[in-house]
């Protein structure tokens, strides 16, 4: 005889799978996590809150997230009256071009590192590791002086060149690790079928490595997209500003532009966060696969 299915209460549902742990312990764990989550999320919600406040109530000491008189005036104000679009365009242009250069350079050299034991391979890998330890701050003085001497300061060209290899070492690692997991037999089969070594790389390895390439691109992209230091050194004219420089300039005058600053901040970070979420699955597969050494 079938037993009648009991409808579970919320409490039972909530503590379902509570293997061994008492409900009280479960509750405490959930409480701790909720507190930490609030601490993590609240400052971000505050930005949102300030961005939808009308201008005359910016300096309120209320802790409420959604104010009674919600308005999107700050958003239209930023888009229409500020250089916001210019900053975004500058950032986008610089970022995509440097990420393209970086991934192109990394994808080919990672293949060499993965497949050949050429002389200088080991020192090369150590050199790549060492570059990760060198902070941007260490390079800022020489890069600034070199850029001045070459007339590259205050140009898009200069920034693109200065950024172009910044993420190459990390990308080479990711890609090399990923290539290592692809069996050599695949290329050999392609070569027996009549293509050259490079043809096999281009037609077999690269298409198979799309997730790793995407990660490398994304890494390059976010690295440059969020960078402040090099941009601050290289770009001093307002027409060249990337968004971090622009937002920093905006935030300088606290009282007057706080709402607009928040609106702009959200508009910049939401696409990045969505990209982050969407790519996280790819990221996981690419990175874990890449880290398994063949």
């Amino acid at each position, binding site marked *: 005889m079938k037993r009648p299915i009991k409808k579970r209460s919320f409490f039972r549902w909530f503590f379902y799978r509570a293997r061994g742990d008492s409900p009280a312990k479960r509750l405490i764990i959930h409480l701790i996590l909720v507190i930490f989550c609030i601490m993590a999320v609240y400052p971000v919600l505050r930005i949102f809150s300030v961005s939808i406040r009308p201008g005359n109530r910016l300096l309120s000491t209320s802790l409420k997230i959604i104010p009674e008189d919600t308005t999107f005036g700050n958003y239209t104000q930023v888009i229409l009256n500020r250089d916001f679009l210019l900053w975004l365009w500058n950032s986008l242009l610089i970022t995509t071009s440097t990420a393209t250069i970086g991934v192109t350079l990394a994808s080919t050299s990672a293949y060499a590192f993965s497949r050949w034991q050429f002389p200088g391979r080991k020192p090369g890998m150590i050199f790549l590791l060492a570059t990760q330890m060198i902070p941007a701050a260490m390079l800022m003085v020489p890069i600034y002086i070199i850029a001045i001497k070459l007339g590259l300061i205050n140009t898009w060209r200069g920034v693109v060149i200065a950024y172009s290899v910044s993420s*190459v070492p990390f990308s080479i690692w990711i890609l090399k690790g990923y290539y290592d997991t692809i069996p050599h037999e695949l290329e050999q089969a392609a070569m027996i079928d009549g293509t050259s070594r490079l043809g096999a790389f281009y037609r077999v390895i690269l298409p198979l490595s799309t997730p790793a390439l995407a990660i490398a691109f994304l890494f390059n992209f976010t690295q440059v997209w969020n960078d402040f230091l090099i941009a601050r050194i290289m770009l001093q004219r307002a027409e060249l500003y990337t968004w971090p420089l622009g937002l920093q300039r905006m935030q300088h005058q606290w009282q007057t532009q706080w709402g607009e600053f928040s609106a702009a901040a959200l508009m910049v970070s939401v696409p990045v966060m969505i990209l982050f979420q969407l790519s996280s699955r790819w990221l996981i597969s690419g990175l874990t696969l890449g880290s398994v050494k063949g």
Partner: protein
Amino acid sequence: MQSLSPQLFAKSLGEVGTTILFVLVAIIAIEFLLYYILKVKLNHVYALPFMLVAPAAIGLLLLVAYPIGYNAVLSFTNMSLRRFTVERGLTYGIKNAVENFVGVFTEPILKQRHFFPILFTTVLWTFIQVSSHVVLGMFLAILLNRPMKLRGIYRTLLLFPWAIPQIIAVLAWRGEFNYEYGYPNVILKSLGLEPIRWLSDPFWNFAAINITNIWLGVPFMTVVLLGGLQSIDRTYYEASEIDGAGKIYQFSHITLPLIQPVMTPAVILGVIWTFNMFNIPFFINQLELESSDILVTALFRAAFEYNRYGFAAAFALVNFFILLVFTLAYLKLTRFKFDVGTLVTATGKKRR
């Protein structure tokens, strides 16, 4: 005020386009040259891998190795904004280098503050940060590493600070440390406590910088450690439970040793990143209190606010050696083999 005009649009596109074209032409030229030398002339076995590596290698040499070398050269000069070229009094020589390096340790680097107090602040800052990242990260990772409801939601929310661009988080926090309107002070006031002068009081400014960076840094450590915890086989725990091991014993004898391969690189990277963290100490320190400056921000000020380039170059070298010595010592102490996969594993290990 500038805005995005069609002229500017075309100009920027043209400039970046020609730059990419230039890079492409340079790569092709290098490849042809190498092909000619290695394949046609020498018929070298490793001609192809050398050709594949060459563009990235040359790029890194020109843009990373050369500036480092140039930095060393700069430390042998007395270059500053006034003495920028040889005609304007720039000199090269050992005397300058001695002056610069001795100056780093004896002269004030900022207006008043000398090297060692700044170093002390930096070490304190790095220690507070890395230890609280590891402790809190481990705590959260252990809480999250158990079957329960809403786990995915907790994880997503806890990762929030990591996902938003750092610059935005920092600028937002800087606003929140406002005396009157920032929410920490609003909460303090509503509890009937004295509000804190986050921006002008040296102690509380340093605290504010630390709070911001803990908020920013814990999520990353949590993810890394959670990945490490999830890769530990459950059977170890079950076996030890049968043998009567308690929770604390399990933690110190199973969890900690087995999470070591993930934790060591994460800690090393954490130290390097925190030591070199620029954005947070620079921005939260709105009133430019010298007491909150760490080595990196002091370097920035020496170079770009006081414009002492030769001196700053020497200072940068000193900073680099401190970090290098620490890393080597740590690697030696933990007997850790830093092979190529570990960094990728550490930064990317994130399993479900």
